[in-house]
């Protein structure tokens, strides 16, 4: 049976991709990883999630970090909830305040950044064209975790003596002339100049109108992975309570619970709440209609 899929446009790939649903059981594992708070493990988890949920495209691991971020936020929006409820601290008064962010706004922003083509990718030629290298946005969600290893993630295409040898990238990168490092640095500098001004969150404080709570789109810090953690974090115990409630009160089978999305489980809970409200209403009205009722 063909699974339900939804789609999202990726500006880096310049195409629309199909995404499968995030099942509750997988989400629970993600929440466990986030609770454990090891960034390397969390990044690996997100990468495997992308590989599995976008399996129609085998190249998803080479997608830019921006495309990956758009996919993950879309998964969050469709399979969990379209809004993000957060608490911020006013930079001036230090007072806490609650706010809600619509994920569609962030996704729209990332899809329409209007970045110049040179930020999405650039082509460099060496030895009179014997070696042509296409550099593009890094495909990892956080640069600092891999140090010099991150260099490999900006190579998008390698053409040697007219032949595309990109598939052997992992084996041949170390043998490329060191001069490519200078071009990588220049590309990353340009890339960072454009990216540094973009903010994932930019919320005005209700306590000081000229102050904002911000989260930059900075690949060279923890900001992207931190933002993703915020998006997918949930109290782990509440997930067990939810499972307990769904099995014991709603008599849902565990198979059903693990296969549907967290958003669908919310629908069941809302239906249950609605049913209870109706029952309560009916009970109250039957009391009112009974003249013998004291």
């Amino acid at each position: 049976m063909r699974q339900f899929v939804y789609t999202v446009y990726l500006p880096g790939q310049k195409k629309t991709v199909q995404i499968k649903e995030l099942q509750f059981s997988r989400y629970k594992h993600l929440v466990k990883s986030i609770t454990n708070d090891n960034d390397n493990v969390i990044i690996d988890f997100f990468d495997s999630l992308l590989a599995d949920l976008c399996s129609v495209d085998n190249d998803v691991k080479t997608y830019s970090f921006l495309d990956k971020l758009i996919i993950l936020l879309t998964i969050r929006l469709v399979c969990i909830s379209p809004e993000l409820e957060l608490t911020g601290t006013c930079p001036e008064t230090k007072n806490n305040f609650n706010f809600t962010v619509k994920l569609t706004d962030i996704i729209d922003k990332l899809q329409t950044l209007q970045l110049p083509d040179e930020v999405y990718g650039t082509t460099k030629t060496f030895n009179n064209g014997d070696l042509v290298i296409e550099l593009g946005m890094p495909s990892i969600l956080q640069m600092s975790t891999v140090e010099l290893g991150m260099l490999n993630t900006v190579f998008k295409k390698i053409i040697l003596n007219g032949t595309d040898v990109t598939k052997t990238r992992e084996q041949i990168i170390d043998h490329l002339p060191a001069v490519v490092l200078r071009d990588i640095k220049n590309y990353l500098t340009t890339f960072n100049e454009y990216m540094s001004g973009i903010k994932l969150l930019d919320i005005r404080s209700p306590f000081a109108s000229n102050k904002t709570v911000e989260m930059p789109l900075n690949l060279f810090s923890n900001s992207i992975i931190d933002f993703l953690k915020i998006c997918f974090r949930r109290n782990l115990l509440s997930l067990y309570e939810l499972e307990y409630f769904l099995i014991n009160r709603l008599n849902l089978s565990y198979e059903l619970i693990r296969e549907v999305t967290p958003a669908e489980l919310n629908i069941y809970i809302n239906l249950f709440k609605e049913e209870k409200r109706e029952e309560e209403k009916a009970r109250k009205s039957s009391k009112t209609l009974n003249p013998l009722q004291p």
Partner: protein
Amino acid sequence: MSENVTDILKQLEKLNEASGVNVYIPSLKKAVRFKNLNLKQQKDLLKSSIDDTLTRLSFTTKFFSIIKENAIDYIDASKLLIIDRLSIAIALRSAGLSSVYNSINLNDLITQIQSTAIDSTILKSTTDTQGLTVNLEAPTLGTDNDINLATIAKLKNVSDRDVKTQIGELFVHEIVKFIHSVTFKTDDGEQNVVFANLSTDNKIAITEKLPSTATNKILDFIKTYRVFENKFSTLNDVSVEVDSSFFSV
């Protein structure tokens, strides 16, 4: 590794050779062709700054390997001098990465190196003290590498915080590099000990027994040699520090 990848690596090897650079070797008084650095070599050099911030020994041993790997024309790298290493490093940096480093035009420095005369008295000297003759010689890259490897092995067991021990070991190892032979006067005549025939531990044991007057004269020789060596990395009184940071971009 598939045949396909092997073929691609061969093509890259040819490409690196074709884009090679002629490097003037001061001790040979001629140019030798070298392949440019590849990405792995550059990454290794950059990583060496993390390995040892105090001693720079990893950098020099890694760069010695690069000299051996990248020479296209035949040379005996172990017979080259430290001034040759400077010339090679500057030429590879200029051709492969950028000819400008800290506002210094490295091509101007390369031109200067080619016209810097080598006075043989700076490369060799003899000191006589209390019946002890020490023949001194500017270390070859082979000697430099051997002693550096021994130093790295020794310092591996010394805590990073124990700077005193680190400096002490570096000091004696540095002196050992410059001693070619030691001649003692004995009752039967003279005994000549050629350092090349000794293990590093024995070289150090003898060096540590030398009287301070002899050590001071050795240090004078090293000092003079270092001043000469600096000519190969200094342009208009601005010195270039040839270490791992020199290869950052």
